[in-house]
Each structure stands twice: as structure tokens, then as C-alpha cells.
């Protein structure tokens, strides 16, 4: 019995082994269990997939926003960021002769963030072209939306880097990095294309935008935003009359509230939603200050303000314990946003009024410029403009009003650069330097 059992066992095991050897084990095709594939949405996407991409475009347009504001704000001496990263008070201010690096967070975060959104917009455009689940009107809606968002992001890149890559459709064969003028021309024509698309898109979008786009969430109202962006792009190109034309089709109004306009909204929930990156916790008192992660207002912004400018008191507050960090200090800290989910304006009427002033100066309609500037001044509790009504004087006034109306919103560095005024910035420490443009990231291999 025993022997028979042994022999049986022997052959059973041997048999099993050879069976295993002979039947070759095939590994099934591997599918990512953690997310849908890009190729999957590019061919025959469902409406749901298109809408998810559309939301992704809106969501990722917030990428890089925090560093964009603090880096350009620091370089333009609007603010200091006191936190644990010494580069915020070192490299960005050119401390002790250090140069800006093209492989550090301040030079990559915004570039990476904006291009993530640009890529999503491109994917949406490609996906719409390769599916037949949407009508022509719906298709135009997706295209008008995606192109407008793409153009807006490219303008942000231009403001910080002065150059951009426009053709990014093939990741393995990217188009050239274009100069400022060429990029801006491409952006403006993209905006015009988008506007045409929006006009063919019927009365509603097939997708849902967040509450940040309330009043701008149909093809016709989204076009108001599209024209606002076009007006901005036009003044950046020095084209006052086109800007004025665009403004007339936008939500620009000298009488409406200054805050009207689409916004980035924030959330603390899942799915990579994000908090307002420019919010900082307020210092409660001298015994409970928050100096460790704080946006400190550059003293010059406080000191140069006209007496009674309410923007100083609404946007900033006195620090109860003005500590020094890295040899720098300031008397005020930010109050720009109340909470970590307070929305941030993408473009608001206040900026458009200033764009109107700028475009009017460029178009030599100086009294229109004064009218616009007075709207801004009065809103800030200041009397009407009383200076000379010349293009130069009004430009100075316009830039000054932009300085206070758009503090810490990524405008100042570019405003000074485009008017060649960066050299007027103060130097706070011996050995500091002024930089007004970020280097293109190392990984672009330019």
C-alpha cells in the first residue's frame, strides 16, 4: 500500500510539474487599474468623457497659480514670501549676485501648470474631432471654450517668460518656442477663432462649468470672457483700437461693479481639487503672529500709496509682530483673500476698466482714459485725477492704478517690463538684483 502511494505521489507531482512546463503561462493584457487611458478618450470619446475633460481644463487652469503670484510679486517688489524655502527671499531677489535657475520651483511651477491646462484643452479639441456623439453646435461649444482657455494660459506664460511654445499637439515633436510678438499674434488669432466657434455654438454648452463661471456659462456669455481676454491681448500687443473693439463685446462696463467677471473657485474635497494658493493665515495678535508662512507687503507699496487709498487697508493689514527674515521685513501682511477657498478673479471688470484706459491712451483718446481712471480712483476713495492729460502722464497714472488695483495678481512684473520700467524698482539689500523675466525650464532643452 505504502509503496503504491509513494509511486502515485511521485508521478502525480512529476505530472503536475510537466503539465505546468508545457502549458505556457500567458499574461493577460495589462490595463491601468488606476485611471482611464489618454488614447481611450482620443478615439470615440463619449459625451461624459468630453465633459470630464472640459472640467479638467477649468480645474487645471488653476495649476501653478500660487507660485506665479508670489514669484512675480517678489521679483517686482510687491511682496516677500516668508516661508521655509529660502529661495523665495534669496534667488528671486538676486541676493548676493545669485542668478535665477531654470530648474527650480519658481521657474517650473507656472510653466508646468499652464501647459498642463493647455494640453488638456488640446486633448479636448482632438477628442471632439474624433468622436461622433456630439452635434456640430455642441462641437463648436467645446472648441470655443477650449481655445479660449488655451489662449488665456499662453498669455500667462508670456507674462512670466516672454516667450512660449504654441504648437504642442504632438508631444514627441513639439513646435518651436516662439518670441513674444509671434506668440501673441497666434494667441489673438486663436481667440478670434474661438469667438467664431462660440457664435456657432447655440444657446447652451454641452458641459457644465463651475460656479466661478456663473453668468459666463453659455456660448454667448462665455464669449464676453473671450473678448475680455482678446482686449487684454491687444493692449499687450500695443493695439489700442482692437482692444477697444474687443472691450465693446466683453463684459467691460464703466458703471457695473468692479468685481464682475469669471473666477477660479477652490475646494478642499477629493479628486485633486485645490485650495486658494495665495491665501495666508492672518496674524491674530502680537502674541499669536503668523510670520512663518506669510506674504509680507513690500514697504514701498504701503509708502508710495496716496493718502486715503482704501485698497491699502482692504488688501493688507499691519503686522502685530513685524519680524525680520533673511534681512528683510515689512510692516504689513496680506489680506487679499479671506479664506483658503475664497475665489480668485480670472479677469474682473476693474482690470477691464484699466485696460480700457490703457487702450484709450494707446488710441490717443486721453479723456476716455481719464474717465476710466477716475472710476478706479473713486472706487478706492481717491479724488479725480488732477495731473497732466498727456499720454506719458496718464500712462504713469494708469500703471500706478494697476499697481494698487491688481496687487499680488501677477501683473506688476509684466507691466514694468513691457514699459521698460523694471530698473525703477528699489533694491532692499546690498547685493540684490532685479529680475523681470523667468528663464524657460531646463527640461524644454532650449
Amino acid at each position, binding site marked *: 500500500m505504502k509503496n503504491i502511494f*509513494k509511486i502515485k505521489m*511521485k508521478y502525480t*507531482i512529476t505530472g503536475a510539474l510537466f503539465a*505546468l*512546463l508545457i502549458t505556457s503561462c*500567458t*499574461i493577460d493584457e*495589462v490595463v*491601468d*487599474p*488606476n*485611471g*482611464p487611458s*489618454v488614447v481611450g*478618450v482620443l478615439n470615440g470619446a463619449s459625451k461624459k468623457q468630453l465633459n*470630464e475633460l472640459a*472640467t*479638467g481644463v477649468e480645474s*487645471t487652469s488653476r495649476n501653478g497659480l500660487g507660485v506665479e503670484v508670489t514669484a512675480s510679486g517678489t521679483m517686482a517688489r510687491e511682496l516677500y514670501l516668508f*516661508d*521655509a524655502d*529660502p529661495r523665495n527671499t534669496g534667488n528671486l531677489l538676486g541676493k*548676493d*549676485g*545669485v542668478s535665477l*535657475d531654470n*530648474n*527650480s*520651483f519658481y521657474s517650473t511651477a507656472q*510653466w508646468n501648470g499652464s*501647459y*498642463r491646462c493647455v494640453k*488638456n484643452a488640446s486633448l479636448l479639441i482632438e477628442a471632439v474631432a474624433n468622436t461622433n456623439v456630439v452635434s456640430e453646435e455642441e462641437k463648436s461649444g467645446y472648441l470655443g471654450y477650449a481655445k479660449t482657455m488655451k489662449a488665456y494660459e499662453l498669455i500667462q506664460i508670456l507674462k512670466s517668460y516672454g516667450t512660449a*511654445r504654441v504648437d*504642442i499637439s504632438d*508631444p514627441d515633436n*513639439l513646435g518651436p*518656442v516662439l518670441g513674444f510678438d509671434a506668440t501673441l499674434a497666434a494667441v489673438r488669432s486663436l481667440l478670434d477663432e474661438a469667438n467664431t466657434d462660440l457664435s456657432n455654438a447655440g444657446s447652451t454648452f454641452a458641459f457644465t462649468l*463651475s460656479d466661478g463661471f456663473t453668468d459666463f456659462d453659455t456660448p454667448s456669455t462665455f464669449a464676453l470672457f473671450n473678448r475680455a481676454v482678446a482686449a487684454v491681448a491687444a493692449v499687450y500687443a500695443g493695439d489700442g483700437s482692437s482692444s477697444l473693439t474687443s472691450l465693446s463685446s466683453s463684459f467691460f462696463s464703466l458703471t457695473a461693479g468692479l468685481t464682475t467677471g469669471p473666477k477660479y*473657485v477652490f*475646494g*478642499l*474635497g*477629493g*479628486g*485633486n*481639487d485645490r485650495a486658494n494658493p495665495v491665501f495666508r*493665515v492672518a496674524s491674530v495678535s502680537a*502674541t*499669536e503672529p503668523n*510670520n*512663518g*508662512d506669510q506674504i509680507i507687503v513690500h514697504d514701498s507699496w504701503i509708502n508710495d500709496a496716496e493718502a486715503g487709498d482704501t485698497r491699502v487697508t482692504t488688501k493688507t493689514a499691519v503686522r502685530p509682530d513685524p*519680524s*525680520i*527674515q533673511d534681512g528683510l521685513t515689512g510692516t504689513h501682511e496680506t489680506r487679499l483673500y479671506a*479664506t*483658503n477657498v475664497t475665489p480668485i478673479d480670472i479677469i474682473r471688470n476693474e482690470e477691464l476698466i484699466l485696460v480700457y484706459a490703457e487702450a484709450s491712451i494707446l488710441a490717443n483718446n486721453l479723456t476716455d482714459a481719464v474717465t476710466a481712471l477716475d472710476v478706479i480712483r473713486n472706487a478706492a476713495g481717491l479724488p479725480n485725477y488732477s495731473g497732466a492729460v498727456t499720454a506719458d502722464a496718464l500712462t504713469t497714472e494708469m500703471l500706478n492704478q494697476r499697481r494698487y488695483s491688481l496687487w499680488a495678481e501677477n501683473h506688476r512684473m509684466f507691466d514694468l517690463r513691457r514699459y521698460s520700467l523694471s530698473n525703477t524698482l528699489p533694491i532692499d539689500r546690498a547685493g540684490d538684483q532685479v529680475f523681470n523675466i523667468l528663464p524657460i525650464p*531646463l527640461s524644454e*532643452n532650449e
Partner: protein
Amino acid sequence: MKKHNHFCKMKILLLLIFVPTLLLAQETITGKVVVEGTGQGAPFMNIIEEGTNNGTSSDIDGNFSITVSSLPVNLKVFALGFAEKTVPVATAGNITIQVAESTESLEEVVVTGLGSSIKRANLANAVSTVSSEELVGNTGQTTVDGALYGKVTGVNITSSSGAPGGGFALRLRGVSSINGNNQPLVIVDGVYINNVEIPSGLRFASGGNRGNEENSGNRLADLDPNDIENIEVLKGSSAAAIYGQRGNAGVVIITTKRGKGGKTKISFSQDTGINVIQNKLGLRPWTAASVESTFNAAERDKYNATIASNGGLYDYEDEIYGNTGFITDTRINATGGNEKTKFYVGGSYRDEEGIIKNTGFDRLSLRTNIDHRISDVFDFTSTTNYVRSNSSRSFTGNENEGGLSYGYTLAFTRPWNNLYPDADGNYPNNPNYPGNPIFVRDQAKNEDSNNRIIQGFKLNTKLFTRENNRVRLILNGGVDYLANETYVYVPETHQAQVGNQEGFVAQGKNNFTQFNAQAIAVWNNTSLNGDLDLTTQFGITYLNQKSNLVNSRGSDLTGGQTNVDQSVNQVIDQFFSREKDFGYFAQVEGNYKDQFIATLGYRLDKSSRNGDPNKLYGFPKASLAVNIANLDFWTLEAINQFKVRAAYGETGNPAAFGATFTSLGSSNTGGNGGTSVAGLKGDPDVEPETASEFEVGFDLGLLNSRVSLEATYYHKNVKDLILSRSLPASSGFTTETTNLADLKNEGVELAVRGDVFDGDNFRWNTGVQFYLNRSEITRLDVPAFAQPGAGFGTGLGTFYIEEGKPVTQLVGNINGTLTQVGNVEPDFQMAFNNQLTILKQWDVSFLLQWKKGGDNLNLSRFLTDLGGTSPDLETAEGQARLASTADALRFVEPAGYLRLREAAIYYRLPSKTVTNWLGESVEGIKLGVSARNLFTITDYSSYDPEVSVNGGAGLSSGIEVTPFPSSQQFYFHLNVNF
């Protein structure tokens, strides 16, 4: 007494009657094998008539009987765990043979194929073996990897955290993979072990950049080093080729303790010790003037006020890192068995408190190892290990404004600000950083717990056994199941949380299942009258690994609550991974008279992690060892071993899970679910990186191996290195992982051992190891790039992949030019290991380790410079540094060191004393004191030159950002054997 005498007489009488009759034809030798020292019978010893196939084995009490054809003969007595002995026997009858227990004889056999082993003397590779005695014999050891320092040539061990429970990375013979798995494959009793670092999600409160900045421990920490019988380290591809595509970074084969059979032995050990900080940096010696010049007059006033009221400054470094942590380690095990079944049953509990209050590690480990012989044909081994481990690691390492990491907080904390809680338990805000370290230590939590079962099984079937041919079939495999839970809690009252996240909790539930199985047929053939042994084997292997990581987080917590449900904002992350490997292998070993030993082998592997999951990749190996001292012409008595050896082998490493996918991640806003391209652009055609290694060397044994030398040179090429590189971000992707480069590692390993003195009252064993490695990127298909996630950009310094340069170089942007500022690769490493026995009962041992050269990027100093708290800022040197440009050059420091890694003194009570005191039931008592990291000599300015901000992954070692400081340990040991 009387009875005994009578029995003896009877025996003599019987012998007198029977011996003459037996003499006529055959001689029978009877006797007993006993263990030297204890006098106990040694069971299951092999007893062979030398020069013949005639043999037997001793029974459970050590008795044996062997019949020989003529006298005199030489009897060879041997078994695993005992020194081999040859006894001349001139007359038949009863003899007693004493054998000595030996750990050294264990080194004799080394695993080379998956189903066979080879005598060390015949090995063609430099395989390092670490015995139990070497591993844990000196001092208390928390983790296996931490216990290997200075014990293996060619290994570079990096500690990423000084927290109890470790955080270690092993690199064997340089970096062999950058984005793939460059940790060696760890196999315990045939089970492929999971050695992951599991992120806890604390980065969502601290602002850390990636999971690997959370400084989790690696899960090899679950294995109790005291359970280990020995460790074999297959360092390069030439030795590890038979492990195919899992062998690129080397293989660590761990064998746990087994029952030896015979009388049940019980061993009890108690270690008691303390953890203290190894190296305190101290406070900057502030003066009122320096406070004012660094900050301003207001700060000077605060400084003066504190001096006046407190009598001095607050030493927060001491407050946070100055805890004396208590350590206990209790172990009890029993071994024994009979002819059919042998067992080892053990349990241990280690509880270790860290140098930061409320940190610690504890581990309960239970083990049952059973060997059972079913019949002459079948036998099996089952190894079962259950582990429950918990750790509390608090907050260290890189962060961004979380106010949690102590090193960060301390860098900005000014020692004149009182941060201690008041009588009502209210903690003051830290005016200069968004966190009060005392609050964080007392109230915030970062913990994990692990339940783990590692089960191995092996069935051995002797299919066919004849004199010259033996065929065995081995089926073995195992399961490693790990259920891990992580828990991070930051109260809503934490400074950085107020007005922000309003309290944070993260609960991780992570499951890992690893299953491996193999079937191997082994054919041993002896021919040429026993001069040629051929061992042929072939088999198949299968590997299946799954993980499911779920991290639930809540913020805006209900006051004082830690349940995720008690929060306003909830976020859940989930990550799945699934991997399958399948492989075939075959190997032939030939041994001609222990003179020429050659091996040829081939392995074919496929993996679901490759672009084409069903494409087979081949990994050949070949080796030759020539024992010149065994050749007939060799007459030099003084040199008993002279072996030259050469080996070649190839191994592979598939891309990490996920590298083949280009997927969309979630990106929600305003309550709408969105998708966005993730950063990674996958490569659907990615191939495994493959290493080929050629190794040559020689082994020398002098004076009957009292002195031995092992010398090895290796040259290893990694082809098609899988690299994550930054893509032009304008493509929408930030990284891609694909085959981009070739990498070369070459190096030298030398090991000398000697029994310097071998007297009755003084014995001294010494060992010196020397090794070095050099690497170079020999091909790069893309422009040179900064390795993503391995540094802080070229502004502060980063690892930088560049053709013609070492893979370990650190590069920074110096005045606009990318410049190599350092290299983390040491010039060489040495270890000096000594065991002394004095007056028989005293054992003294110490292990010195020297790392020469190698640089670190000390970014902790960047922070303390910025905070004005670097201890040297009162000196002209410190001020000069402070005034210099903040680039990588400023923060690179030499990181060499000389360290007394282990030192111990033990006293073994003489057995007579033990018997007198405690009677026969206690066999031996050993007492001792020991220390770990007793001193370190280094120029490095921070806590420990051994650092890694990014855990064990990839290129990570050598960059420091506020680590958990390393500790010194002191122990008292008690060991009792029953």
C-alpha cells in the same frame, strides 16, 4: 551507583563474547557522538567510512553503529552546524566521538541555483555570508538591514531616518537602477519578501512634495534579525543571474533558524537598553549684539528679557531630540525534534522608544519552522512567521509650511521665545514658523501598524535514488501578506492648521499580497569513479503581487476628533498595482574532484510590467572556479587553498508598475468631476533594463585557513537603463519613464580574515573588509537632465544624469553654469571586525566602519542659515558662509566618517558555576553589555553623514533636509539556555 557499575560489567562481558566472532568477517564500531562541552548526544550526525560510500547516522541520542570491512579506518563525522571531524579507529567496539558546534561550518554551503547549493570552497562568485553570530551576536539590532553595516563587502547602506524601526536602503555594487527597483530582492526561506516604504499621507498636512519625503520605514523592519540563521548576499548579476529579471540589484537570501533535533533546547534572552541622540549640534552661542545684528533691536529686547526671566535661553534641540528612549527585547525559543520531525518555535517582543518623546517601534514576532520527513522519498519544510509591528515616527524631513517637521521648525525657532504650554495646557504660537515643536511632539501623531504573515513551504521529493544518479523534485513557494495601517493626526489647534486646514487626519489602509512558487527538478550524477559530479536542474517560477492602497483624509475636524467621518472635507486616494512574472530556468554544474567547478545556466522571464507582457527575455550565466591548491602538483603546505574564479551573468529589471500607461488623473473643480493628463507619459514599449556582470577573483587560505583572503574585481554594465526624465513640460507631460541610457559600475572587494591568536586563555579573530565602486553613464539618448525627484533643482543641487559622468554626481547651477559640485559615492569603505575571547569566559568584540570620501548636500544648513540658527554663525567662518551665494556649492560637505558601529563585552558563566547555582536544568548563562554607534569621527556638520531625504528609493542618498537624528544605543544582555 551500584546499578551503573553492574551494567558496565555486563557490557564488557557481552563484548568479550561477541567481538571475537565479529572479527572473523566484519568489524562493527559502535559508539556515541557527543557535543563538546555539554556532553550531550549529538543526533543525526553523518558517520562515513572515509574513502568509501559506507556510512550511517547517529540516532536521536547520538548513538550509532557502523560495520566496516577492515580495521583500522578513519571515520568522518559531520553535519550542518558542527565542525567536521575525522577520527582514526584502530579497534572495533565502543567509542565516543566529540564534535564541536560551529557556526563557521554553515558558511561551507552557499545557494547558487534555485534548487541546489555548493560548497563555499568551490564557489566561483564572491558571495558574502553573514551568520547569526555576526548579525546579532554583538549588540541589539532593530532591523536586518541596519544590522548589516560593515559586515558585507560591496554594500552601501543608507539610513533615511533615525526613527526607531529604521528606514534603510541597501545598494549592492553601486546603483543598478534609478527608477526601477534598486533595492535587492529579499528572499526569506524561499518567500519573496515585500520591502516597501508605505506613505502615510502626512504630506497633505506638511506640504511635502512626494510620498517618499514622508520618511516611512521600509517593511523589512518586520523581520526579527534574531530569527535569522544566516544571510547570503548575491551582490551582482553573475551570482544572481538565476533570479533573472528580479536579480538586477542583487539578491539577499535569508534563512531562518531551524530545529536541530535531539533534546529540546530552550533559550531565553533579554536585552535592555537605551536610545540617546548620537550627536547634538548645539545652540548658536547668541549674544545680545549678535541678536541685534542678525535681526533687530526688538529681538534683542526679547532675548534680554528671556535671559533675565529664565536665566538662559531655551534649548529646544535638547527638548525635542534629548529623550532617553528605553529599549527592551525579549526572546524565547525552543528547538528540538526526532528523526522525522524537527522544530523551531520562537517568539520575540521588542519595544523601543526613540530620542523624540512619543516616538517608538515595537514588534511582536512569532515563528514556527518545521522540518518533517514523511518517508525516504518525501520531506517538507514549513516556515511560518506572524508579525505585529507598530511604530510612531512623528514628523521629520522635508516639508513646506506645515509647521510639523522638527528640523524645519527648529531652524526658524529663536531660543528666546517661550514655547512651553501654560498651566492650562495652551501652547504659545511660534512667532517665526507656523508650528510649535513641543505642541507637535505632544499632540500630533504619525503612526503605522502592520499585521503580517509570511508563510513558506517546500516539498522535496526524491524521485529516483541510485548510487550515481539522484533525481529530486522541489516544489516550493510562499505567501507574504501585509496589512498595513497608517494614521496621521494634526489637531485643529496646531498653529499652521488654524484658519487653514483646521485639523487634519489621514487613515491609510494598505494591503499587499505577494505570492511566489517554483517547481524545480534536480539531477545529481556522479561519474568517472566519483571524480565528476554533475548537477543539472531546470524549473519554472511564478510570481504574483498585488497591492491596494487606500488613504482617507479629513480636514476641518470636529474639535478633538480623529475619525475621518468627523470632518468637513474628505478626500480619498486609492492606488492599485498588479504584477505577474513567469520564468523558466535551467542550470548545469560540473565539479571535477573539487579542482575544476564550472556552471552554465540560462533563465527566461516575462513580466506584466514590460511593454510586451508575453515577450521572453533571456539571462545567461557561466562561471568557472579552479582550486589550484587541490591540483595534484600542489605541494605547498602553508597554502591550503588557492582558488581562482571567474563568473559572468546577466539579470534584468522590468519597469516599475505603471510605466507603460499614459493615463488621465482626476481633477475636479466646483463639484464637477474632471480628468486631466497626469504628469507621466507612459512608454507602451518599455523593455526591462538588463545588467551583465563579469567578476574575477581569487581566494587564498593559509595555515589551514587560519588566514584567508578573498579578492574580487567586478565590472557591471546596465543596458537600457530605465529612467524617468523630465519632459518638456510644454508637451503637457512632465515625466516619462523609458529606456534611455547605459550605466557602468566597476569595483574591487577585498576581505581578509585571520585567527591571530588561538590560545587557551586568549583567542583573537579579526576581519578586514575593503571595497569601492565607481560608476559612469556610458550612453544617454537624450540631453543631460536633472533627475526628477532626486534633489531640489540645479539651484540648490540635484542628481544629474550626464554621459561620461558618475550616476551619483551632484550638480548645481554655479554662476549660470551647471557644475559638478560633488559625488555621493564614497572613495572606498572599510570595516574592521574583531572578536576576542579572554580567559575562556570573556568575549569582547567590536566593529569599526570607515567610509572614506563621498559628499552630501546639506540643505538643513540652508534652513538654519536662513533662520540665523546655525551653531557656527558666531564665527567668522560661519558669517563668511552666510554671505556667500546660496548655491549648491555652499551646501556640499564631505560626508566620510569613521564609526565604532558595534562594541560588546560578554561573560559566559562557567558551566560548573551554573550547575552549582541553578542545578542541571540550566545549561548556560551569558551576560553582556554592548553599544551601537559609540563614536563617530566626521567633518560633516549635521547630525549624521548617513542621510536621505527621499527614503530608500532611486538616487536618494546624500541629500539632507532635517532628518530624524540618529541615535546611540547601549544595552545590557542576559541569555539563558535550558
